[in-house]
């Protein structure tokens, strides 16, 4: 035990044996139950941890996606159905007929509607501020 071979005095060798045989009043049956309980609890915990992490990550991704979608939907201006008042329409028709007197009023209104519809045909939606997304 001493790793000292023959140099180790016999009385110290005897002392080592006494030390090896000493008793400690600790660790009864209740302690064993307590430790095994704690070990079982720790054993269950690591298995749950990655699953909980995965769930939390998925929930966070869903919330983020919903949030971005909501903002995009509410903040995007598609410019469909801009209100054009009757006065504006009449003025536009008048200006068209001034430039092209051969147009009938009906034809001028038709051209106006076509121009208006064409103006709303967008390749990409624009936010309300007018800047591209």
């Amino acid at each position: 035990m001493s790793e000292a071979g023959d140099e180790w005095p016999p009385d110290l060798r005897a002392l080592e044996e006494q030390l090896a045989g000493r008793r400690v009043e600790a660790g009864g049956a209740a302690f064993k139950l307590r430790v095994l309980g704690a070990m079982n609890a720790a054993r269950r915990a690591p298995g749950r941890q990655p699953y909980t992490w995965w769930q939390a990550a998925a929930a966070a991704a869903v919330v983020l996606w919903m949030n971005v979608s909501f903002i995009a939907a509410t903040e995007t201006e598609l410019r469909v159905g801009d209100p054009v008042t009757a006065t504006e329409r009449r003025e536009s028709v008048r200006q068209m007929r001034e430039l092209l007197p051969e147009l009938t009023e009906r034809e001028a209104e038709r051209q106006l509607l076509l121009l208006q519809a064409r103006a709303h045909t967008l390749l990409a939606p624009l936010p309300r501020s007018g800047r591209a997304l």
Partner: protein
Amino acid sequence: MEPRTDALLKDLLEAREGAFERLYNQFAPKLLRTAYCITRRREDAEDAVQDVFVAVVRAGAALAEVKNLNAYLFTAVHRAAARRAKERGSEEQIDAARIEDQRAGSSHDGEGERLARALQHLPLEQRAVVSLKIDGGLTFDEIATSLNVSLNTAASRYRYALEKLRTSMNAELQDMPAKGNANV
């Protein structure tokens, strides 16, 4: 590593049924002795040992890195117990030693009690080396690694500790008749 410990380590890694109870049965008594030797308090010793067993479970796959389960456990319990002893502080330790002195010291004490008392009066570093050597069966090389000291320091601490134990036990044995007479 001895085959029995090797098999146990394998079972722990695979989380086999009963492996943790076998670990407890095989190591708890000796680990408790080491923890008690360092902390000198039963509650702290038990808490330190529990910390070590729980840490083994939490280590999971990292246990594969352990080459010597015995040295690993005793190093861990030494650290856990030393931390608790430090948390208690020197005053608590002195109190504990005083209580032990009052409890013991009678002429009816056996050699075991006198040895336990003498052991408690050794400095922490020497108690740790003695316990790791005697209870853990660690080599001086393993003790040196565990305590982060040189091989020579570990070996000389052990020798000084045993010599001090022998001296204090002999001194107490010589004092005993006088103490016995005084009690009468």
